[in-house]
């Protein structure tokens, strides 16, 4: 068992580390003391830990959700009525891939795309940070994927090998493709992609391969090349295989992209939420102001009610805030406006464990010496604190929906609230008990008579 003093020193160092993480990534330092003047820019580096295959990289900047950073939250409903039940999952993952490609093409940094299925309805949620006018993005995403096979344009052949190969589209399209799947080549054992055509498609493919033996046969998805295999021979029967030097991942990705054309899924925009950057900035500023005022009131109240004990609780509260912020940066927790509310609420709740203990202490004080009274109060109060907080943690768990259960909400703002609240409650048990207890053990001395 380490002495309380050692623990307080550890807590102190830990808090300093957290405070360092809490600093903004860079800010100017400028001051003058007599003749000595400093004019520098402070830069806090990020985290970059590499250990064998394990790597951990964080920029340690706060990540803001769409409601604070500005951006668009779009929900599309996928119409899967034309898809066979057993192919729905494939069709959905292909749809997601297509949307990802389009969003990347649109040049959005860090888009977030997820599928959410609930009672036979499938939704694609697309989050585009920084996009304040999503009109272009929605019309781009709303298009059904176009898969088309091309061939080398006839006139290009005469110009020699160095000229770029212009391609022309053929009449073989995604509609002629039944499905694509990953297989393993029977001779080489390497991953390959097998194509299966409809009867109509088989005929078209046969004549296409016949004309193009020894040439490339590019396949386009939304006008971008997915693959350009070389035709070895004329292929009849409607089955073909694209083999090459692929990894399993590459083959899977190619099959998904091809299926996007084979199993086209029309989508419809059903929900749009756009927040401009100005409103977000204003919200951040207002929340910080509200938080500081509230915090000041809490500290004042604790001091007026409990005197120096209250000040120690406020110190523990300060450590609580420093650790919370550091966790948000390391995890990272995406901060939304309700998320900030959850944090502020947890600040109000964090002193609860201290209040429980101090009230207990007032009762025990007349019966025992000071130190013993403190220890007994901590011991007794712990049961209540633990029991009482389990309820809040349970509710936060349901709201945060960490396993992405389809029957619960996956809404970002609500999740943000639940996550910061749960983190706050869990952390407050630590700071309320471990931090303030050891601070009190070190700082409290029995008055000598």
């Amino acid at each position, binding site marked *: 068992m380490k002495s309380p003093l050692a623990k307080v020193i550890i807590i102190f160092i830990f808090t300093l580390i957290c405070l360092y993480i809490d600093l903004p990534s860079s800010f100017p330092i400028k001051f003058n003391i007599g003749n000595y003047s400093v004019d520098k820019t402070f830069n806090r580096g990020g985290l970059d830990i590499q250990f064998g295959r394990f790597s951990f990289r964080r920029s340690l900047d706060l990540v803001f959700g769409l409601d604070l950073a500005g951006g668009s939250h779009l929900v599309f409903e996928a119409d899967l009525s034309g898809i066979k039940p057993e192919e729905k999952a494939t069709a959905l993952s292909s749809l997601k891939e297509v949307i990802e490609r389009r969003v990347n093409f649109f040049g959005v940094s860090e888009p977030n795309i997820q599928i959410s299925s609930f009672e036979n*309805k499938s939704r694609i949620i697309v989050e585009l940070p920084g996009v304040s006018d999503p009109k272009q993005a929605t019309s781009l995403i709303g298009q059904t994927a176009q898969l088309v096979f091309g061939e080398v344009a006839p006139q290009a052949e005469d110009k020699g090998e160095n000229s770029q190969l212009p391609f022309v589209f053929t009449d073989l399209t995604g509609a002629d493709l039944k499905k694509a799947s990953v297989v393993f080549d029977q001779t080489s054992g390497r991953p390959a992609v097998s194509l299966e055509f409809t009867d109509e498609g088989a005929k078209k493919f046969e004549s296409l391969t016949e004309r193009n033996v020894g040439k490339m046969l590019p396949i386009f998805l939304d006008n971008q090349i997915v693959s350009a295999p070389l035709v070895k021979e004329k292929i009849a029967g409607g089955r073909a295989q694209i083999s090459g030097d692929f990894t399993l991942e590459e083959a899977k990705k190619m099959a998904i992209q091809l299926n996007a054309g084979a199993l086209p899924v029309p989508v419809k925009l059903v929900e749009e939420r756009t927040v401009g950057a100005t409103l977000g900035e204003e919200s951040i500023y*207002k929340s910080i102001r509200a938080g500081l005022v509230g915090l000041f009131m809490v500290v004042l109240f604790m001091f007026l009610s409990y005197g120096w004990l209250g000040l120690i609780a406020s110190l523990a509260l300060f450590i609580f805030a420093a650790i919370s912020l550091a966790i948000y940066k390391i995890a990272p927790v995406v901060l939304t406006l309700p998320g900030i509310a959850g944090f502020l*609420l947890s*600040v*109000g709740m964090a002193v609860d464990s201290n209040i429980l203990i101090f009230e207990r202490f007032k009762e025990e004080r007349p019966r025992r010496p000071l130190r013993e009274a403190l220890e007994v109060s901590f011991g007794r109060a712990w049961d209540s604190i633990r029991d009482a907080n389990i*309820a809040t943690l349970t509710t936060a768990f349901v709201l945060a929906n960490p396993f992405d259960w389809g029957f619960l909400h996956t809404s970002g703002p609500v999740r943000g609230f639940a996550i910061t609240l749960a983190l706050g409650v869990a952390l407050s048990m630590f700071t309320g008990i471990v931090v303030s207890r050891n601070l009190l053990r070190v700082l409290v001395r029995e008055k000598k008579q």
Partner: protein
Amino acid sequence: MINWLKYKYIYFSISILALSLGLFGILKWGLRLSIDFTGGVMAEYVLGKDVSIEDIKSKIENEVKANVSSISKVGDGGSYIFRISSLNDNQKEKLKDILKEAAGDNFKELRFENVGPSVGPELVKKTVYAIVISSFFILLMVARQFSSFKFGISAILAMFHDSFILISSFSWFGHFFGAEVDFLFVTALLTTLSFSVHDTIVVYDRIRELQRKEGGEFVSLANRALSETMVRSLNNSFTIIFMLVAMILLGGSTIKWFAVALLLGTIAGTYSSPFVAVPLLVVWNNWEEKIRLRKLSR
């Protein structure tokens, strides 16, 4: 020591009054559901100070062919919140054209939310699931915690008391101040459920601790437990209330009603533990004893 439980029928009357007022509000006005549940458009634009809201409203209704349910001013920066029925892409563009024309250079889109009609029913279902699941877990926890029927049921009745007061107060706020029930409100409701049992558990824990250690008449034990936990319960609520009031007054319009809902939940939760949960427990206990005495005397 204060004899808290002497006034238990006053506490019950206060609760019954609050519940009836709530019931009245719900029956008379219902709840104003937000576009999260009903579908529709909610948008905030900066238009400048001297635009005519009436003109804009009639223009939107005639040219966009959409129902405008309200246009309200927020703050004094010349920004307005619009609540309109769900719009398609063309209607959206028309709406913006009208507003741009009316506002000129001042025009700025702060946020735009458009929820299609198919989303609402799904959200309602998911909300019901969330409430059912969290209440179930809280019930399970209370049952395990107190392994006693009367403790558990009284705690749960107090919890329903708080939720009903919170829900029904929003019919009043909705009618008089335009507060809406959106998904954040549901979040506040679930948080209230847990706050409510949070405080109750602390008082009940104390009653049982005294029962184990000292025994004696149940009412006087309950009175002592109330006296001993009252200050902590009030103090703890004060710190939460400080944070929430700061959020309501300074936190901006987006989060105002969410903070109000949390505040009401906190106040109801703080009130209900000593003044609903404990008196219920005492009344129940008295009945139990009377029945036992009657059986003995036979």
